[in-house]
């Protein structure tokens, strides 16, 4: 690790805002990078990396389809997903130093915001009365029940390693200082977070984003009835969530507190792209797990974080 330089006092919010802008603008490219990686590894050309931007633009110009069976909850779901995901991004120190909003224990708020988005989206799915969407909702909350303890364990391990209860500290300068003395537990936490990313962001081997059979879907089947701008918001929310978890993984493995603002943001962008490539590699080399195996994978990820905690408690 490079020696720490004190965070620059002048306008700490400006690099943070710039990093947030990079994250938001780059998010739709991440699924594209994963798909491209997968295609190249399996000997195909694949869709363009920027495909999701085109899809979003197309959907935003479409008419809204309204299911007469639904209530306002159906329309509120996508909005809440976007707001909660962006709000969660505000809590992360994306430029390596400062978060736009930070308070002791904000890691709980981070998990709470993700839960809020999930709550809204799953209820929007159930609002249609579709059996498919009920199935997807059930699977989503089932896997979340196994993923959430894992996420909190990872964050608690970071808090334990850094002695800091803010995400700003847990992923900022105190983390950089903690790496030399706690490399093994921190690496375990990073790996665990990557596995949670695969589950939370509906990537393989948990979900198959390329499937077109409703019965095998998890996330996509919840939003079968959303269309037009609503569906655009859902897709954007999914990409943002991938970027959010990617930023967590990058934050653990590449603390950027010692870098200048521009360099830190560049590392963030490169790290996000690397995470997306990693997702593509995993999806290329692994078959999708049976649904009943997924909780075992998630419990395994939690166990990694738990090992990290036990190492730190020694």
């Amino acid at each position, binding site marked *: 690790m490079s020696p720490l330089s004190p965070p620059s006092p002048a306008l700490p919010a400006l690099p943070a805002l710039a990093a947030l802008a990079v994250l938001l603008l780059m998010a739709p490219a991440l699924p594209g990078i994963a798909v491209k990686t997968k295609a190249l590894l399996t000997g195909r050309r694949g869709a363009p990396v920027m495909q999701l931007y085109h899809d979003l633009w197309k959907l*935003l*110009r*479409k*008419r*809204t*389809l*309204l*299911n*007469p069976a639904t*209530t306002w*909850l159906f329309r509120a779901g996508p*909005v809440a997903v976007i*707001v909660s995901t*962006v709000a969660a991004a505000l809590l992360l120190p994306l430029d390596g130093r400062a978060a736009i*909003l930070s308070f*002791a*224990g*904000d890691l709980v*708020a981070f998990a*709470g915001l993700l*839960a809020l988005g*999930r*709550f809204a989206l*799953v*209820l929007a799915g*159930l*609002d*249609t*009365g*579709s*059996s498919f969407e*009920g*199935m997807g*909702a*059930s*699977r989503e*909350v*089932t896997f*979340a*029940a196994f*993923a*959430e*303890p894992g996420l*909190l*364990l990872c964050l*608690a391990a970071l*808090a*334990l390693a850094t*002695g*800091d*209860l803010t995400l700003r500290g847990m992923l900022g300068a105190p983390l950089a200082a903690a790496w030399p003395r706690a490399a093994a537990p921190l690496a375990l936490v990073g790996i665990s977070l990557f596995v949670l990313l695969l589950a939370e962001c509906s990537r393989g081997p948990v979900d198959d984003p390329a499937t077109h059979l*409703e019965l095998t879907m998890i996330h996509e089947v919840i939003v*079968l*009835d959303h*269309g*037009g*701008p609503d569906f655009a*918001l859902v897709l954007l929310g999914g990409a943002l969530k991938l970027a959010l978890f990617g930023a967590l993984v990058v934050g653990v493995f590449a603390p950027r507190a010692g870098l200048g603002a521009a360099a830190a943001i560049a590392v963030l962008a490169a790290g996000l792209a690397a995470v997306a490539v990693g997702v593509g590699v995993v999806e290329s080399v692994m078959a999708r797990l049976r649904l009943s195996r997924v909780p075992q994978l998630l419990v395994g990820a*939690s166990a990694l974080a738990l090992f990290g905690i036990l190492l730190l*408690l020694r």
Partner: protein
Amino acid sequence: MSTLGAVSAVGTASTASTASTVNAAPLQLLAAGVLLVLVAGVARAALSRRPAAGDALYRAGFAAGGLAAALAALAVLAGASPPEVRITATTPGGPWVFGLDALSAVFLLAVAVAGTASALYGVTYLRREPHPRPAGVAHLLMAVLVAAMMLVVAARAAVPFLIAWEVMALSAYFLVVFEHDRPEVRRAGLLYLAVTHAGTLALFVLFAAWAGEGRDLGFAALAARAASLPAGGALVLALALLGFGAKAGVVPLHVWLPEAHAAAPSHVSAVMSGVVIKMGIYGLLRVVVLLGAPPAWWGWLVAALGAASGVLGVLWALAQHDLKRLLAFHSVENIGIILLGIGAGSLGITYGHPAMAVLGFGGAALHTLNHALFKSLLFFGAGAVVQATGTRDLERLGGLARRMPGTAAAFLAGAAAIVGLPPLNGFVGEWLVYRSLLPGAATVAGAAGDASRLAILAVPALALIGALALACFVKVIGIVFLGHGRDDTALAGAREAPPGMLGPAFALAAACALIGLLPALVLAPALRVGALVAHRGAGVAALDLGGLSAAGPMTVFALALAAALALAWLARPLLARGPRAAAPTWGCGYPAPTPRMQYTASSFAAPLLLELRPLAGVHERRTAGAFATHAVDPVLAGLVLPAWRGLRAAADRLRPLQRGRLALYVLYIVAALLALLLYLLAAGGGATPTGGAAP
């Protein structure tokens, strides 16, 4: 009780009045509240011939009484410290003392707000019941119950505490068996009565063991004796867990709770789940206050019981198809969360981490208040649904959000709050409990050998509880309020609840939102309660509560999130392009869907229950043409009932002795005498007259 005239508030109040006369006001307000509530109940019972006038009087009296008690609580939480009132005439167990401190006040606030809302809701609810029963006595019992709880938290001596406790337990029993013509209600009532009396028995033993030789059962005298208790008060602490734990519904003493809460009328379920079980929490915290530092094993035990109650409670809730039983199991879950806070607080005292102690107890107190608000609210919604449809079975409901939009919105708010989603009050309370379990510069100074750092292992349990609760409430809202109705006969006449039921529900929802949006209002008082329990009354200023509570940034966060959600919702039409087109639900090309093809509550919960099958208590029944799942309480069905049956079977062995023939009984007597004689002969050898004991 000829001593009411001899109340000598003068004794202490007059001395204190030199300092400030305002100080005595909270206790006077509380007394006024208790009296008003009781008068309202009596008036309603007396006016049973003229229910309209009685209802109006009852509403006004109860609301005024609740307001007075709430004001008393708020004054104390804002920092007032009223003097204690003593009844000095010859009362059993030493003088009877009443007082209010911050710990009492937070529970008093819960009693006043949730109790009053439930009583007001109950007026309309009972009037609309399909088979009306005389409501007067139910309203009177409700008034007695709420007044008794106000006295439970104000009592400062064992005897008045136990009297109020028993009045509370019995009035709650009579309310539970209000619909006593149904056998399952009588069964649930009997179970509740047995458990609550077993718990009271434990409390009798507790206070007797604590007082020892002393005649004074005042709390001050007990606190003075705390240091001389053997084994650090281990017996007292164990009995407190038993007696207060049974009231609170801690696993495995929860067996009465889902039965009683499901059997009671909905406004009674609301007050029982919302506040009556919290009296057990109050008792535990009061014991910690009086006893001083609990030993380490107690903190770990409480935390472990909390984790078990939380996880098992929510898991069993997930398995239910009965709306009110489901909500009742969620009370077990939330008691678990509260116990996690108490456990962390206790460990904080034991291991000398004041911040951990203050956060843990403060989180427990705040979550208690929050749960009173949102659990009562949820039972109000459930009552409206049950009344509108005539069924509690989730599998027959559906699509009620379109028929009952107000009820659906209120229930949604309560669900989001209980799940702990920002920016509502459940999040604030759980955040405090998380803080007490998590390490941090302020909490644990990083000593490697410090066992209190192991409290971090409860974090995944709390996360699991939260995620399972989310799954369960998504299930309830999705199945009850969204989609299409599954049973036309149940839903044909479903109408929105009247303002008399929606009003209290919206008032509680507003309280949930207020606490969630402005955590700065509640965090400082909650931490003051925590400091009081953690025995940091004076040293609390040194703890830097501002840094501990993070009240400012929390408030900014909550308000910003709410504003962003509202703005995004309002801006949503900007995305619309052209007129909306209607499109039916995607059915994968299937041409004739019916509402029966929707996912059901059972199918929704099945994957989770399948994964956690050993704990879930779901029984499957398969026949050639049908498949059914049935949720049972594993503790009741697997532990309590078999033990009871074993006892019965053992007793049955003795039945042949009782034949009802006199000659046989005379034979028993002769045989017994003969056996005694033989024993005396064998023991004494006949030489010494051992029978001298006979008078």
